[in-house]
């Protein structure tokens, strides 16, 4: 059954080809059959593969399928090969299943759009690339997938290309991630150059053998890979593209910019965890990036007024949690949070899509309100997702995954109390902005009339994801709540468990209780400010300093402003000033000389046969001279 592995990326790819070539000619009804059906087939294959992986584990708990060798020259021998282990299995499962639900949803959501088949073609290509990224056995294939998802992200952000601002957002996303990709490419070159292979498993083994812990090379390589990861996963300092990426269709935001692609950085670091474990400084950098991002993005989320931008900042913040987990060596906790986050964040985006669609494409949360009674199903599913995001204790998936990260931050040898405080502060912020969103959108008085209600295709995925957002956490619970470790145990087939340090002054139950308390504070403050005493909220934001702070957070800590002045403008200025420097003359000189040469040699082709015959004779004479006298 494991040999079906290659079909997982193959189905979406085939469907992409069909949709890209015949999409416009096929009847409209057939488009989602291909578009969503192919992902469904991938999901089925993934389940079969996963079932076989669980029931009869392959030797070494990993399975490599070599399809063919691309080229084989001088030690450079990249195989087209897929590698399946617990890590890639979990991620592919989530990608295909959540992907299928989102495609199913899109069949209705995008139903009226003129670019119906184009949309599905891009989305299918995305899933194919994402699966290639996750399953690639060597860095080259991983990089192919990595760039593939980047291109799809670009295409989908700018999907409604007639609006110039969408094109700008797409370009921004592409260019900013490119900064990270440049670092990552350098990292890949470094690894290949020093360790002589591209196969990830061999590479990790070689790194362990050749490089002592803490030496320069692994740290540099780790930091370069981290550069790629922060770009793709929208972490500090390259997070600025993600909020603007919300210009794309909402299913795209759900699939690419929440559930899957933006977690590619998490996957990259988890996949190369051996490298990071011998580069403690690089791993610490991962933790710091994660902690800082989760707090900064949390503050920004509180001030946003666009429903999708709130969710975007929340995504940045939650991926910050995953990075924090990676940074403290809690590998399986990071993947656990990836999974639950994929469920609830996809759900929240799909729910947001339902709301936006029902309110004449209104995205401003201050113009919404009172939707609780109007749209009960949307409300309850959205609430399930939001509670999971904020970590409503005991019954939501988010509580268990985030709780695990926070506890591991405390208990790991690589954790620290500072990081732990940051993680707990993050809970407060999450709870604040989540319930602010809920209260503003669903409670209070109705400000915009509902004009259209979503159908089955849009609500079914929401319901399924809502169920998963609640029960998805029960696969791994703390000691005092059932002590289930099936997810961690499974992940430990591929990723090492954390190394615990001697505990001081804190127990797991204490940590969870504190988190619960903080969650409740956030909920309470939100309730107070956005339901009970709206005047209080206005009073707080009234003073000039508060207004300035609000603006500062609203603009993502002025990051865009800063980058505009530090990077964009100086470079544009230099480019303008230096437009006609001497270097251009070299190139235009070469072009000019070539052109002159062309006009010179062209004279030999004059169409006269006697001249041609003379050429043959002259050539022969020259060669005769050479062979006789040289």
């Amino acid at each position, binding site marked *: 059954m494991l040999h079906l592995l290659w079909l997982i990326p193959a189905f979406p790819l085939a469907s992409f080809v069909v949709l890209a070539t015949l999409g416009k000619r096929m009847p409209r009804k057939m488009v989602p059959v291909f578009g969503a059906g192919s992902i469904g087939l991938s999901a089925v294959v993934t389940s079969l593969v996963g079932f076989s992986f669980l029931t009869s584990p392959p030797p070494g708990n990993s399975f490599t399928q070599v399809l063919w060798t691309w080229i084989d020259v001088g030690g450079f021998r990249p195989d087209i090969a897929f590698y399946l282990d617990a890590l890639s299995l979990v991620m592919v499962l989530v990608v295909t299943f959540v992907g299928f639900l989102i495609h199913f949803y899109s069949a209705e959501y995008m139903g009226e759009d003129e670019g119906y088949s184009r949309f599905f073609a891009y989305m299918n290509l995305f899933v194919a690339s994402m699966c290639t990224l996750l399953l690639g056995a060597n860095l080259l294939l991983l990089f192919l997938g990595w760039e593939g998802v980047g291109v799809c992200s670009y295409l989908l952000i700018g999907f409604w290309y007639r609006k110039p601002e969408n094109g700008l957002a797409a370009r921004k996303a592409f260019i900013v991630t490119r900064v990270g990709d440049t670092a990552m490419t350098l990292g890949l070159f470094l690894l290949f150059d020093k360790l002589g292979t591209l196969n990830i498993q061999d590479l990790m083994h070689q790194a362990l053998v050749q490089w002592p812990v803490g030496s320069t090379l692994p740290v540099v390589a780790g930091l370069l890979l981290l550069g790629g990861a922060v770009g793709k996963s929208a972490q500090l300092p390259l997070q600025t593209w993600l909020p603007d990426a919300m210009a794309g269709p909402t299913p795209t935001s759900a699939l690419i910019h929440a559930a899957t692609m933006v977690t590619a950085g998490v996957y990259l670091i988890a996949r190369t965890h051996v490298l990071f474990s011998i580069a403690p400084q690089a791993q610490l950098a991962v933790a710091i990036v994660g902690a800082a991002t989760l707090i900064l993005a949390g503050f920004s989320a509180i001030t946003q007024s666009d429903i999708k931008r709130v969710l975007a900042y929340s995504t940045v913040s939650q991926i910050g949690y995953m990075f924090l987990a990676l940074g403290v060596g809690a590998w399986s906790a990071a993947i656990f949070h990836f999974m639950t986050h994929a469920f609830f964040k996809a759900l929240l985006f799909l729910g947001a899509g339902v709301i936006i669609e029902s309110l004449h494409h209104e995205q401003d949360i201050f113009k919404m309100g009172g939707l609780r009674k109007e749209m009960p199903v949307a409300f309850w599913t959205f609430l399930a997702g939001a509670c999971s995001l904020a970590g409503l204790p005991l019954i939501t998936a988010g509580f268990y995954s985030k709780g695990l990260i926070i506890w591991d931050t405390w208990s790991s040898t690589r954790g620290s109390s500072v990081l732990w405080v940051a993680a707990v502060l993050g809970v407060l912020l999450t709870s604040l902005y989540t319930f602010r969103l809920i209260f503003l959108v669903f409670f209070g008085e109705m400000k915009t009339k509902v004009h259209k209600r979503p159908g089955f295709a849009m609500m079914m995925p929401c319901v399924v994801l809502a169920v998963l957002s609640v029960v998805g956490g029960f696969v791994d619970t703390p000691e005092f709540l059932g002590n289930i470790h099936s997810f961690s145990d499974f992940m430990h087939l591929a990723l090492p468990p954390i190394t615990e340090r001697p505990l001081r002054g804190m127990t797991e139950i204490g940590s969870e209780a504190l988190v619960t308390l903080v969650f409740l504070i956030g909920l309470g403050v939100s309730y107070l400010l956005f339901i009970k005493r709206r005047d209080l909220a206005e009073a707080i934001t009234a003073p000039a300093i508060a207004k300035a702070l609000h603006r500062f957070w609203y603009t993502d800590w002025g990051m865009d402003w800063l980058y505009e002045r530090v990077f964009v403008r100086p470079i544009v200025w230099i480019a303008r000033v230096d437009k006609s420097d001497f270097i251009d003359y070299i190139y235009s000189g070469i072009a000019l000389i070539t*052109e002159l040469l062309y006009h010179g040699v062209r004279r030999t082709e004059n169409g006269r046969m006697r001249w041609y015959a003379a050429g043959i004779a002259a050539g022969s004479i020259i060669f005769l001279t050479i062979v006789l006298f040289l």
Partner: protein
Amino acid sequence: MNGTDLTAVLPLLILTVAAVVVMVAVCIRRSHLLAVWLTLAGLAGAFVSLWTVATVAPIQVTPLLVIDGYALFYMGLIIAATFVTVILAYGYMEKQQAYREELYVLILTAALGSAVMVASNHFVSFFLGLEVLSVALYAMNAYLCNRKLPLEAGIKYLVLAAVSAAFLLFGMALIYAQLGTLQFGQIASMLIGGVSYDKTLIYPGLALMITGIGFKLAVVPFHMWTPDVYEGAPAPVAAFVATVSKGGMVALLLRYFYETGAYRLHSVFLVFSIIAIASMIAGNLLALLQNNVKRILAYSSIAHLGYMLVAFLAGGDRAAEAVTFYLVAYFVTTLGTFGVVSVLSNGERDADSMDDYEGLFWRRPILAGVFTLMLLSLAGIPLTAGFVGKFFLIAAGTSASLYGLIFTLVVTSVVGLFYYLRIIVAIYKTPAEVVTTVPAALPALSRSGNLALAGLTVLLVWIGVYPGPMLDVIQHAVSTLRIF
């Protein structure tokens, strides 16, 4: 000649019989479709017979022909290329106001000549094959004799080919005069084997032979006929000249110079280096601002033969593999590009002006895509056959430390990129009247031509992405070459 010998030359016999059958069929009843079907059947038969022949190979049939894996591979290549040419010619000739059927007799004869060349290890079969090929080509170039350009092409080719054949014969005579043999193997044992001989006869002999060979390969300074003939000849015939005719000569070049060991002589090396460098530079420069697509392809083929010579000069098994692989890639792309030209041509003129391709994408997106792929392959962009081919050329060149040649190859390839991209830019340029163009007003494309192009495109990408199987076949074939 016994039964085994007859089995061994089965492909040649089938091609001969096919040519006669088509000729007789034309006498009985003029039907374009029938002639094409008979031709295709003959080619398919000859192709299938290669597997039968493989059971008795390697074998020397009379002193003239050697049927080994190398010869069989090249025969297969030539027959396959002819097959595609015939399909393209069918769609092309349907649009012409002329007697169409005799063209196929000529094509079969020319293919036979080329097939003899690849199996020859003797001067007599060398010359015989060459002339069978050439004589058929004279007529093929001028086939549309009611037009001016084809006639001009035919005459030019006739005269210049005759001149170069005279050089070739004289060169052979000089070598025979000194060594007293016409057999490659025996030449080798004398040339390299320490027998004393008069260099002032042998070396000029080799040099004059290079003139004859160089003419067929269209390399500098024997290249000047190429653009005129390519421009004048009907597009499918130009495709044939570029592939089958040159391919046969490349096979013979490798066998002759490798099996006689002549490639080891310093002066031969020097002459071919000059030819290679001059061809790469002149071919690419000449194409630079050219506005006639067929002429661009002619110049580009000069450059491509120059590239191939780089690997040829590296010498040895690897080099022969690299040249052969490049030739396969070159066959696919050249047939593809001329295929597009033939498909777009009409009864009055060939679609060879740059204007014919301006905004092609907006009229015929798929055809434009195919053409783009073919051009990218000619330029050597990854994921196409051309890239892998060029990669092997450079690898062979570097392993023999031919850095000067490699440098020229790389630099001139960059120049080459310019004119391929010029065509591509023209293809995707938005014409002003794009909105008003009614798709239905376009002339219908021939289905057979489209089919051939689709096949070539698949092959192009397949070899580019997954060259393994093709490489295995080539390695196996080339290993039968007895390199001195």
